[in-house]
């Protein structure tokens, strides 16, 4: 039967695509690009910082470049998602094209599946993992952990036994303009936004310009914009100037919201810095506005406003009971950081004590608590503190499983060859 002239181009195109994605040359290219990506991404961390470089180089499809001061940008290199994605497709396609599932190829199947699992696991880690910190002083109880790389503007109202919190992500303020949502009792008009800032006391004898806002701590404190820091042991503290306009009502005026406000550790840090210039007592007075709540009222409801590190609340509480900080004799090198905590979970009726220490994290309710830092309470230095890195990573087992499969597959394949060789030798 003569072939229809219309059916010829399709199979040819599909064949070419299949040939491309099963090509070993593609594998080599992807691996080469991957090596370059790792190199450039590592170098970029020096200037851009760990998290920014990770997002720009590894958690993207393309890496964009723009000239200094220019508004335009062009893609210059594939990003981690594109290289990893193509590599994954290439691996799966080539494997299914070249290998049949037989007992003799079991080891190869296992090893390849292990690598596939590693790649997919890393993708899900990128997309779903979440890190935060929980800082506790001895005797303190918390129900949440905080993400110091992301802030949220919250409006908290009394809801009886609990508080009701409306959370506006930092990215909304960074975009400026108007924030309108049915969940908000007012429109938030963002007039200014600074990703990093520093508080300056409006000393009466130094004060000359009018306050930025007519309400709240802006009467006593200015917040200067500062350069964004990329250091991993430093953090960016944002500040915004906003106006609140209730739905159908008169404006509630302008307010300054800042990540410096509402946190006692931040206040104590500022007090310490200012104290060097003006003395402890006066610095304490000057820094007090940082912890005075900013309250707005809309629709007969009072909201306490705060711009704070994003919080992740848990249905259970963690209480720090005791800390132990040991160093090697004669040195300051830490030997053991250990914290004893109490977990209280009303849902599961748990009330138990657990030790968290170096290389011994607590895995609980899908979160892993790593012993991160120890120190002293900023307000009362006699009280020790402990900080935990709280990680949520649903795919935390995939690297273990993937490595086990790869190792196991290679071992199986090796043993098969070994036994086959021994058998042939005996037969001979």
């Amino acid at each position, binding site marked *: 039967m003569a072939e229809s002239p219309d059916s010829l181009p399709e199979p040819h195109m599909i064949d070419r695509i299949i040939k491309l994605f099963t090509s070993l040359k593609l594998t080599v290219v992807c691996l080469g690009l991957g090596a370059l990506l790792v190199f450039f991404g590592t170098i970029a961390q020096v200037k851009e910082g760990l998290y920014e470089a990770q997002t720009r180089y590894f958690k993207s499809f393309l890496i964009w470049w723009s000239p200094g001061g220019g508004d335009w940008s062009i893609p210059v290199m594939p990003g981690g998602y594109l290289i990893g994605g193509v590599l994954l497709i290439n691996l799966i396609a080539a494997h299914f094209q070249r290998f049949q599932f037989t007992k003799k190829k079991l080891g190869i199947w296992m090893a390849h599946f292990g690598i596939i699992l590693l790649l997919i696991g890393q993708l899900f880690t990128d997309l779903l993992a979440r890190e935060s910190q929980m800082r506790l002083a001895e005797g303190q109880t918390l129900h949440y952990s905080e993400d110091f790389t992301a802030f949220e503007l919250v409006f908290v109202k009394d809801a009886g036994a609990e508080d009701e919190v409306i959370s506006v992500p930092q990215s909304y303020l960074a975009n400026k303009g108007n924030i309108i949502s049915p969940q908000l009792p007012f429109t938030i008009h963002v007039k200014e936004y600074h990703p990093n800032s520093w508080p300056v006391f409006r000393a009466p004898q130094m004060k000359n310009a009018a306050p930025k806002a007519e309400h709240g701590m802006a009467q006593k404190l200015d917040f200067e914009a500062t350069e964004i820091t990329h250091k991993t042991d430093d953090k960016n503290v944002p500040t915004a100037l906003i106006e609140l306009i209730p739905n159908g009502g008169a404006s509630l005026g302008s307010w300054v919201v800042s990540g410096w406000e509402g946190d006692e550790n931040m206040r104590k840090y500022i007090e310490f810095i200012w104290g060097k210039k003006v*003395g402890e007592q006066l610095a304490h007075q000057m820094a007090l506005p940082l912890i005075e709540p900013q309250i707005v009222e809309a629709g007969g409801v009072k909201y306490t406003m705060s711009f704070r590190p994003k919080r992740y609340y848990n249905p259970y509480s963690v209480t720090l009971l005791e800390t132990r900080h040991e160093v090697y004799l004669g040195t300051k090198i830490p030997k053991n950081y250990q914290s004893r905590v109490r977990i209280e979970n009303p849902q599961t009726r748990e009330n138990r004590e657990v030790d968290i220490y170096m290389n011994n994290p607590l895995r609980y309710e899908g979160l892993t608590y790593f012993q991160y830092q120890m120190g002293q309470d900023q307000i009362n230095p006699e009280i020790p503190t402990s900080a935990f890195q709280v990680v949520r990573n649903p795919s935390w087992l995939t690297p273990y499983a993937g490595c086990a499969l790869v190792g196991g597959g290679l071992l199986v394949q090796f043993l098969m060859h070994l036994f086959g060789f021994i058998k042939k030798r005996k037969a001979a």
Partner: protein
Amino acid sequence: MVLFCAASLFLSGCKREEITVYRAPKEEPRRASSAASAAPPMSGHAALPERPTWKLPAGWTEHPADGPSLASFEVKSADGGHAEVSIMPFGVSLDDASLVNISRENLGLTRLSEEEVAKRIQPITVGGLPAKLFDITSGETSETQQLKAGVCLAVLPRDKTTWFFKLQGEPLAVNAEKGSFVKFLESIEFQAAPPMSAGAGSMSLSGGSSGAVLPAWEIPSHWQASSHSDMLLAKFVVTGQNSARTEMTVSSLSGTGGGALMNINRWRGQLGLAPVEEGEANQLLQPLDLPAGKAMLVDMNGTDAKTQKPARMLAVILPRGGETWFYKLMGDPQMTETERPAFLKFLQSLRYAEKPANG
């Protein structure tokens, strides 16, 4: 490939941030604010040994004191211009050039050299005492824009306090009111602040977990009130040469407060000393008779567990009915020895309000 991209984009979309509403447990009260509100009236302006009084010029209106300002006034000049005057005591002072240049920088003006600053100083009297008047903005125009504010600043160092008197406002109003400002300064007189009385002290704020009411006391003038945690009721710091310092803290616990042995061993831990048994602890206690009651004094030397520096501690345990008070002087050994007489005199000044009998 298309499926992979679609899946990744979908998953990426899951990460997009949104405005959310959720319920959360009630927040604990902010610790520093509760400590600040429980601070005895010996901190801030109340700690000043003297207060200024003045004759208010015509057209000036006094406003309530605000924050670090002891007093502030709204000034309306004859031509309708507005200015304001504020009085602010500071525990420390800046040198003349720093004072002037900080103000000038805030106004967008160029910095001046020390010689140029010296030319702008006008000697004046404040309450009969020699002071300096800095005309920060006379005849100036800022580099980028017309001068928006005029500033005149008078500075009077007096004992351990530097007094700042600032006239600021529309440039024309400031110029017009400068004469009234100088007369206002000349009218100022300093008067001693009302002494702390037993009645006033015992009616003062409660603090600490025991709900204790602070007694009245006489604080030595060179002791600086300091911020403190909720565990303490008061804290004073004395600083000497070469950063030597000693701190006096006040706390109170219900009942026996754990007893002498427990507290002595706690203090020994703070000094890096080994704990002792009851017999040895009793030997450390020295009786101390105070008007407020029979107390016990403990005098120990050791190494500050926090700073790892030599430290001396004088701790007093004062049982009073259903609670026990602790007064502790701890710090540099020499400073502590120097402050010992002042500490004992302070303890002698304690006056507790008698609790009303239950009827």
